[in-house]
């Protein structure tokens, strides 16, 4: 009984030695791969794919080859963490302007939109959006079925039950932009992290969609914000019929936020607070 076991073990050991010998004769790892491994240690390692590469190691390989990839395909998770950013800057010999590149995603919808029917289909915004352009009165309103929640690598998105829309916790959001690509209605937008005023309505002009109209809680097109702004930072886009904020000119005076009658313009910091005006109307 012992002989077969011994023979098998002996063969196994011989084979092991054979593998060891082969392994010793292999050429050493190329320098580029070593650099990539070094860089990949500095990356978050979540493999979220937001940078556009399949996983952190592929991103590290691209960075090792050309460090300017960081500007075209930014790892936004690194931007949030000063230690990680310092390490990466050191190993790549790169100057990164953290504040200029940091972005936050916002859901450009204030919610409370009426439903025009009951949707009982597959619980995903993509499916709901295909059936008669969604079940909300506004064709640009957040459907609140949470496609963005599933894709968010930071778990920063949740559903606000009262308003029936997705809300993004800007403290957790890294601005990676995955939800922007995921949203079938294209109502999630990236704004600079130091933006003061954000515009929370996506209704573009009055396109003739039968049975659809703007909800009562969106932008009223009163243009008070344009008049209120003393620095000409807000311009009216005639085609889309929405105000556009030039964040370079904005001095954070918050005059537009006070002027907005429907509280569609809000401070980025209290973007998810339930506005007084809206709740009073109900």
């Amino acid at each position, binding site marked *: 009984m012992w*002989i*077969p076991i011994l023979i*098998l073990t002996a*063969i*196994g050991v011989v*084979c092991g030695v054979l*593998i060891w010998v*082969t392994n010793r004769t*292999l050429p050493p790892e190329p320098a580029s791969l070593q650099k990539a491994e070094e860089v990949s240690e500095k990356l978050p390692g979540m493999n979220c794919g937001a940078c556009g590469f399949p996983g952190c190691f592929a991103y590290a390989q691209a960075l090792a080859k050309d460090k300017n990839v960081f500007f075209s395909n930014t790892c936004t998770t690194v931007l949030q963490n000063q230690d990680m950013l310092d390490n990466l800057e050191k190993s790549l010999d790169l100057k990164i302007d953290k504040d200029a590149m940091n972005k936050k995603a916002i859901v450009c919808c204030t919610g409370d939109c009426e439903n025009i029917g009951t949707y009982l289909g597959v619980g995903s915004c993509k499916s709901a959006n295909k059936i008669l352009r969604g079940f909300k009165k506004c064709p640009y309103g957040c459907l609140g079925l949470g496609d963005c929640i599933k894709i968010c690598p930071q778990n920063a998105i949740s559903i606000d039950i009262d308003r029936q829309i997705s809300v993004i916790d800007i403290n957790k959001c890294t601005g990676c932009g995955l939800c922007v690509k995921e949203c079938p209605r294209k109502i999630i937008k990236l704004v600079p992290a130091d933006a003061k005023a954000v515009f929370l309505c996506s209704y573009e002009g009055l396109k003739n969609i039968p049975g659809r109209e703007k909800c009562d809680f969106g932008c009223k097109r009163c243009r008070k914000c344009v008049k209120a702004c003393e620095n000409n930072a807000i311009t009216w886009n005639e085609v889309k019929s929405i105000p556009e904020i030039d964040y370079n000119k904005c001095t954070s005076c918050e005059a537009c936020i006070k002027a907005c009658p429907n509280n569609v313009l809000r401070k980025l910091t209290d973007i998810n607070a339930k506005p007084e005006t809206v709740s009073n109307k109900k």
Partner: protein
Amino acid sequence: MIETKEKFTAKKFWKELAKGIVLTNPVFVLILGLCPTLAVTTSINNALGMGAGVIFVLLGSNIIISLIRKITPNMVRIPVFIVVIAAFVTILSLLFEAYIPPLYESLGIYLPLIVVNCIILGRAEVFASKNPVLLSMADGIGVGLGFTVSLIIISFLREVLGTGSLEIFGKKLFAIPVLSQSPLTIFIMPPGAFIVIALLMALFRLLGVLKNE
């Protein structure tokens, strides 16, 4: 175990080698190793790499198993075969990873899965454990070549029909004008593999029937 006592000749060597390619072609006649055949035949590059890998492992394992056939106890022969094959597959994947990383990546899981490839285990059990070393070598090369040739035929048809062009080692050999603009993409996808293999198998059967008549 049955031991063939006949004397070894060069003629026998070539006969054994040729047998593996045509008469007992592992893919079309024995219908063995279909899983890697279906998976890696999307391009002729992969087919060549996989074929080379299988020839290497089959040759190595056949030689070793044939050498140790007399000291291998019958009751643990399958574990012994597996250990030997696994050692060669490990060596092969180390070599591939070191010298041809793109091929290593495109073959993916099918490279380590050569360990459980039924062609190799089958040849070890049926042939190498009962025959002398040189004959086992001939058998290993023959069956390995048979496998490679089938992979090349399948992948050639799939790549030409599915992409309208042919590429070997990064060099574009030719492109068919109309087909490359609107290729029959189904041939690159899994159903295409089944269709091509089925058609080729039917062809092999037909040739067999004609030959017998």
